[in-house]
């Protein structure tokens, strides 16, 4: 089946060398290709959104009414929270606590998603020219979304929190128990390296610990839904339901400072 003579061998070897060279230089094509494809990707996403709006008009109408009611309720809660915040600030000043600076963020729209099923990522419409750099953390109003892993002039690739390659140093909000949260490509995240008797309960809130400096402290990651033991029996893990649904992200905020 694979028997070749000398005349066939030389072109075959040349093709293999060429393909290997191409494979090695793929990262060189990424930036110009993504910069070129930014406009068509944005256009197709816009058309998709508009068509979706027309098809799901009634659902959106009902959803709109529910959200309006929710906004009124949240406004009421926000006023109360503002009062609490002011009081907190006054007390902090009295105790001379170091103030945590508010994040400086850049809003960006999602224009594409990962091509394969083995990774979880999005492409956003902001890049280096807008101040987005590799390694910056990405959030939305619900919680942590992921991390910028590649940037071009006008686009950036964001690895989402449910990608198994991403690790976030996290703590349980109630007990301050530390662990490492990473994705599973599924619906849930996994919090690993918990001690044998961790102070974790179902429905506990998981937030970023701020230990590795990429992710600011206190960003909501999700809630604990299951606790389990590793095969070795030396440590525990827990499943975390992410606060952000990675499959339904349309807009994100990149923390630039």
């Amino acid at each position, binding site marked *: 089946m694979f028997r070749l003579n000398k005349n066939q061998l030389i072109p075959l070897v040349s093709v293999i060398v060429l393909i290997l060279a191409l494979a090695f230089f793929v990262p060189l094509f990424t930036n110009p290709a993504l910069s070129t494809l930014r406009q068509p990707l944005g256009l197709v996403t816009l058309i998709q959104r508009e068509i979706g709006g027309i098809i799901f008009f009634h659902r959106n109408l009902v959803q709109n009414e529910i959200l309006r009611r929710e906004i009124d309720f949240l406004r009421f809660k926000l006023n109360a929270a503002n009062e609490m915040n002011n009081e907190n600030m006054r007390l902090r000043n009295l105790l001379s606590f170091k103030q945590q600076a508010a994040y400086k963020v850049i809003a960006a729209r999602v224009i594409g998603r990962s091509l394969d099923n083995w990774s979880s990522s999005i492409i956003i419409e902001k890049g280096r020219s807008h101040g987005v750099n590799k390694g910056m953390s990405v959030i939305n109003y619900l919680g942590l979304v992921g991390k910028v892993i590649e940037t071009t002039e006008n686009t950036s*690739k964001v690895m989402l929190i449910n990608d198994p390659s991403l690790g976030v140093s996290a703590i349980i909000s109630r007990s301050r128990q530390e662990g490492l949260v990473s994705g599973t490509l599924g619906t849930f995240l996994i919090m690993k390296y918990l001690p044998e008797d961790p102070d974790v309960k179902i429905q506990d809130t998981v937030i970023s610990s701020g230990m590795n400096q990429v992710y600011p402290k206190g960003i909501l990651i999700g809630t604990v839904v299951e606790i389990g033991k590793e095969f070795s029996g030396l440590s525990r893990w827990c499943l975390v339901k992410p606060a952000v649904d990675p499959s339904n992200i349309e807009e994100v905020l990149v923390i630039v400072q």
Partner: protein
Amino acid sequence: MKKFNLFLILLIVAIFSVTILNSFRVFNLKPDLFIICLCFASLYFEYRWALALSVFSGLLKDIFSFNTFGINTLIFCILSFLILKLIRQISIEDNWMRMSLVFIVAFTNNILSGLILAFSGSVVPFGVFLRIIVFSSLYTTLVSFLFFKFIPLKQ
């Protein structure tokens, strides 16, 4: 159709895959249109064009992925080479055979991608691993039926 237009079609497939195709996710999985394109190219075109189209497909897949090395370019090239060798040995006259071929190629590609991910140190639960390998391959195969149904095979 000029064969150079096929590269343009692949580009449109890439844009479609990263945008609109996300609305057609089942179990959070989407079909791999590039695998279908790879099988199509290998079935329809002569050796050089099939290889060129598969390399371009792999290249596009790598551009939209996070790989620092063009692993998809390499895998697609090898798969295309194997398909071209295989279709000389077996008959692929009916759609079921072609769909079986797509399933085998998608399955192999998924296993390779999954193993690369696993060996790179990422932990993927076994259930999720199996789901992606089996369901994604099946979904790709089912979508390929539409292509084979409406585009007749001519050499």
